C-alpha cells in the first residue's frame, strides 16, 4: 500500500489524536476539529491540486452533523468534476451502529463505517480493502 493523504475529523481531542496516530502509520495526516474546518481543509487541498485519499469523519461535530459534512465534501468533488473512482474514501466514525444511521450515511455517499471503540486492525483492514 502506498502512502496516503488522510484528513481526520473529530471534535474530541483524544479520539482525533488516536486516529492521527494510526493514520500517520499509513501516510500523512491532517486534523480538523469542526465541520467547517474539515470542509475548508478539504477545499484548500483540492485547490492546491492535491486530493485526500481518505477522510475519517466523526458522525457528530460541534457545528454540524458529520453526514452534512459528507454531503458537502461529495458536492465539492462533483463540482470539480472528479471521477467516481478518484474520489476520496470517506469512513464515518460513530459510537452507534443502528441501521438507520448506517443507511443514511451510505446514501449520502460514504464508503464505509466503523463503530467506536474499534479494533485498529479492523480499521486497517477496511482501509486496505480500498486498494491504495
Amino acid at each position, binding site marked *: 500500500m502506498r502512502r496516503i493523504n488522510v484528513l481526520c475529523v473529530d471534535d474530541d*481531542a*483524544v479520539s482525533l489524536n488516536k486516529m*492521527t*496516530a494510526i493514520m500517520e502509520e499509513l501516510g500523512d495526516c491532517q486534523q480538523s476539529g469542526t465541520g467547517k474546518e474539515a470542509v475548508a481543509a478539504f477545499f484548500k487541498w483540492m485547490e492546491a491540486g492535491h486530493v485526500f485519499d481518505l477522510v475519517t469523519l466523526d458522525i457528530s461535530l460541534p457545528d454540524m452533523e458529520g453526514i452534512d459534512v459528507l454531503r458537502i465534501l461529495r458536492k465539492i468533488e462533483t463540482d470539480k468534476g472528479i471521477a467516481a473512482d478518484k474520489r476520496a474514501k470517506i469512513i464515518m466514525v460513530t459510537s452507534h451502529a443502528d441501521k438507520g444511521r448506517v443507511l443514511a450515511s451510505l446514501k449520502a455517499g460514504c464508503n464505509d463505517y466503523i463503530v467506536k*471503540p474499534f479494533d485498529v486492525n479492523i480499521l486497517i483492514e477496511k482501509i486496505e480493502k480500498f486498494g491504495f
Partner: protein
Amino acid sequence: MLVKSNKNLKWFLIGMLIMVLCGAGLYALQNWVILPSFVELEDELARKDLQRCLDAIRREGHHLGKLAGDWAIWDDSYRFMEDRNQEFIDSNLQWETLEKSTGVNLVYFCTSQGEIVWGEVYDSEQDGQVRLEELSPAFLNSSNYLIRHDSINSEHVGILLTSQGPLMVFSRPIVKSNGTGPSNGVFIMGRFLNRKILQTLAEQIHVRFTVQDLKQSAFSRDELELLTRLGDGAVTVIEKKDTFMTVFGAMQDIYGKPALLVTAHVPRDIMARGISMGRLASFSVLITITSVGLLLAFFLADYVFGMRRKTAYIEALIEERTLELKNAMAEADRIRAKAESANKAKSDFLANMSHELRTPLNGIIGMAEIAGNYSTDEEQRKLIGLITAEAGSLLRIINDILDLSKVESGKVELEEIPFDLRTMLHDVDMSLGKQARHKGLAFDINIPADLPTRLKGDPGRLRQVLINLIGNAMKFTHKGRISVTVAGTADEHKRVQLKFQVKDTGVGIPRDKLEIIFNRFTQADESTTRKYGGTGLGTTICREIVELMGGRISVESEVNKGTIFRFTTVLLLQDPATEVVPAVEEIYSGMEILIIDENAVNRNIIDEYLKNKGCRTAWAADYRTAVSLLTVPSAPPRPFDLIITDRRIGDVTGFDLALELRAFDDLRHIPIAMLTSVGNLGDGKRCKEVGIRCYLTRPVGPDDLYNAVQLLMDCARKDNFDSVGGLITKHTIAETFRKKAQILLVEDYPVNQQVVKMHLNGAGYQVDLAENGRQAVEAFAKDGYDLILMDVQMPVLDGFGATREIRILESAVQAQDKHSKRTPIIAMTAHAVKGYHQTCLEAGMDDYITKPFKRAELLAMVAKWMGLHPSNGKRNSAAEAPQAADPADLSAEPMDLACALKEFMGKRDLLLKTLRHFLEAGRAQIETIQKALVDGNAPVIRQEAHKIKGGAANLTAHRLARCAHELEKAAAAGDLGHAVAAMDDFKLEFKALEDHIAGEGRS
C-alpha cells in the same frame, strides 16, 4: 453608630427649638406684658408733667392776684380812683422799678363802667410802652369780663391773648385797705407770659415746655375743636419719639376760650429704663437657659459617647472572643480531622498491608495445592503439605491481625442470623475435640438439656471466640482435660444471656500476667512465643468480639494447675413464626457432611467451603476412621447427610468405601461424592456401579462444589438421578445449569455488557442481552428467564418501567398457568441512596446490586436468586480463584498504559500529549459540571460527561469512562441527586487517573 448620631442630632435640634421658643416667649413677655405697664406709667407721668406746667402757669395768675390785691385793696388806690392824683402814679407806677421788682407789665385802673382812669402796658423786652388792643377803651367796657365784678372780693384771673403775646391778667375791684367797699373801680394787673417767665417756671417744675397761641399751632381745626371741647387743661395728644415724648395741653383764656397750647417735652427715661431692664432680664434668662442647655448637652454627649465607647469595647471584646472560639473550634476540628485521618490511615494501611500479604500467600497456597495435586511423589507431597500448612498458619496470623484491627476500629458488624448453638458446639467438638483427643486429652462440651439453643446472632464470630479459647487451651495443655460448658436462660424479652466456660488443666498463667493476657501481642511468657507460637492476638480478638456482643470475658488461672476462661454474651431467641428460611438454606444448615481425605489441605478447603454454608463437617484421614465415624453412634443423633471422599483413601479407594457402606441399612442411602485429582477412565462406570452419585475432578471451585452438592441432594431427595444421567459430574453441572440458567442482562453501556456477560459466562450461565428496557420486555415476552439483571437508567425505557411491564406480563401468564414462577429481577444501580431498595421493591424488583460490583458479588447475588446457592460470599475471599483481568475490573489500573500505547501505535509522545490535554480539559470540564450541578443545568452535565466518557474510553481509562457514563445517564434522566453522587465517584476516579499518570510519569 450612624443611626445613633442622627438621634442625637434630632435631640439637639429639639433643644435648640425649645431655646428659640423660650427666647420668643421672653421677647413677647417683654413687649406685651412688662412694657405696656411701663408705657402707661410713662403716659401718666407725662400727663402729670403737663398738668404741672398748666398749674405753674395758673399759679402765676394767683401770684399776680396776690400782688394785685396789694394794689387793689389800698386806700391810696381808692383815693386815686376818686381824685386821680398824679402823685399816686408817680410814686407807685414807675415802670422801671415796678417791672423790675414785680415783673408786672400791665396796670389798669378802671371805673366800674370800664372807663380807663389810668392804664399802661410796659414791657422792657418790647422796649417800653406797649399798646394793646385788647385793653383799649373801646374794648374795655362794663360788660367786659375783666370789669364786671359781682362783689367787692371777686377776682378774675386768666390768660389774655394779645397781639404782643399771652398775658396773665388779674382784675378785682378796688376797695379800701380794710377791704370794705363800695368798690371804686377795677384794678387790673397783668404780666406777659414771656419766655423769661416760662423758662423760670420750667426750671421750677423741671419740665421743658413751651407756650404758644393755640391758633398759631399746627393743629388742625378738628383737633382744635376736640381740644376746645375737652376744656381747660385737657391732655390728649401725646407724640412719642424714642427718647422723649411731646405732650400737648390747652389753656383757656380768661374769657374761657382756648387760648394757649402748652407743649411739654418729656424725656422717656422710664421707657428706656424699662427696655433696658427687659433686655437685661431676657438676656440673663437666655444666658441661663443656654448655659443650662449646654451643660445638659455636654453631660448627655459625654454619657452617650461613654456608652458608645463601652459598647464598642464590648463589641470588640465579643468579636475577639468569637474569633478565639472559632479558632479553637477550627483547631479542634483540625485535630479531630487529623486524628480521624490518622486513624483512617492506620486502618487503610493495615487493610492494604494485609491484602498485600494475603494475596501472595493465597498464591502460594493455591500453587502449592496445584503442585500437590499434580505430584505423585509421596515425599514431595508431604513437603508441599507442610508448605501449605505453614502458609496457612501465616495466613491465619495475618487474618488475625486484620481482624483485630477491623474489630478495634469498629468496622466489624455482627450478623444476626439464625443458627443452632447445639449444632455449632457439636461442630467444634468434632473438629477441635478430635484434635484434643488425638493429643491424649480428654475433651467434652457440656450443654444443659434445657438450654435454648435456637438463637439469633453471629455464629461465625462466636465460633471464632470458642475456637480461639479452646485452641489456646489445647496449646497449653499437655495432659488432663479440657472442658467447655455453656449455661444460660432466656428472659422475658427473648434475650438469652449465655455463660461460656473453657476450662483446662494446662500450664496455667502466672498471676502477674493475668491482667495483660488480653492485651495485644502479649503472651503469658516471652518464651511462650518460642515454645508455643502464636501472635498473642487471639485473646485480644476474643475480648473485642465478646464485648462487641455485649458480654464480658475473664480469666482465672493457677500455674501448673490450669486455666479457666469465662465469657458471656447476649443473643436473641429465634422467632419461629417470622423466621422464614428459604428452602434453599435448609439444604446446608445443619447438614452433616463427612469429608474423607488424607490430604489435610484438600480436606480444609472442602471443609471451609462447606462450613461457609453452615454445614457441620467431620473428617477422616483414613479408612478406618471414616468407617468408625460412620458406624459408631456418636453425639449427634443424626447420621451423616453426605460423604465427600477422595478417590484414594490410604490403600483403598472411595469405591471400596461405598461398597462397604452399602452393607449397612442406615448408611447405604447416604449420597457419596467423589473428588479426584486425576480422572481415570472407567471411573464413571465404577461410580454408578457402587452407588457414588457424584464425581468431580479437581480443581473443584466452591461454585462447582455447591452446584454439585445442590444437585446431588436434590436428586437424592427426589430420587431422580436419571435426570442427570445417573452421575453428577462437572459436565453435568455445567449442562444442567446452562440449560436452566438463562439470565437476561439488560444494560446499555457496551463495556458493562461485556464485563457482566463475561463474569456470568465464566460461572457457567448463559446470558441474553438487551440494550434497553423495551428490548428487555420484548425478550421476556419471547422467552422465559430464570433471572433478569436490570440496569435502572437506560434510554427508551428505564429499568423500573421495564420491570413493571414484565410483571404485568407475568401476572397475565400466571392467570393461565398457576405453576409459572415469578422471575427474579435484580436492579443494577450506580448508587443506592436511602430508600432505594424500597423504590426497587415497589417497582416490582426483588433485589439490587450497586455498581461498581465485583465478580464475586454479582455471582453471589445471581446464585442467591437462581435458587442454587444461598449467598454468603463474605468469608470466601481466600478460596476464590484468581480473577482474569478484565477491562472494567475494579482492581485494575485506572488506565492501562501499555494497552493505550498499543492503540496509539506505539507513539509514546503523542499518547502523553493527548493524555495531558485530556486531563487539562478534564479539569476544566469538572469545573463546568460542578457549576452546572449548582445551576441545575442537566443538559450541560450530560454533554460534558458524554465528551469525557468518549475520551476516557479511548484512552483505556475504563473506570473513568464508566463513571462518566453514569453521570451522563443521571443527567439525561434529569436526576440531579444521582448526578451529584455520580459526580463524586467521577472526581475520585479522575484523581485516581491523575495520580496514576503522575506515578507512571515518574517511573
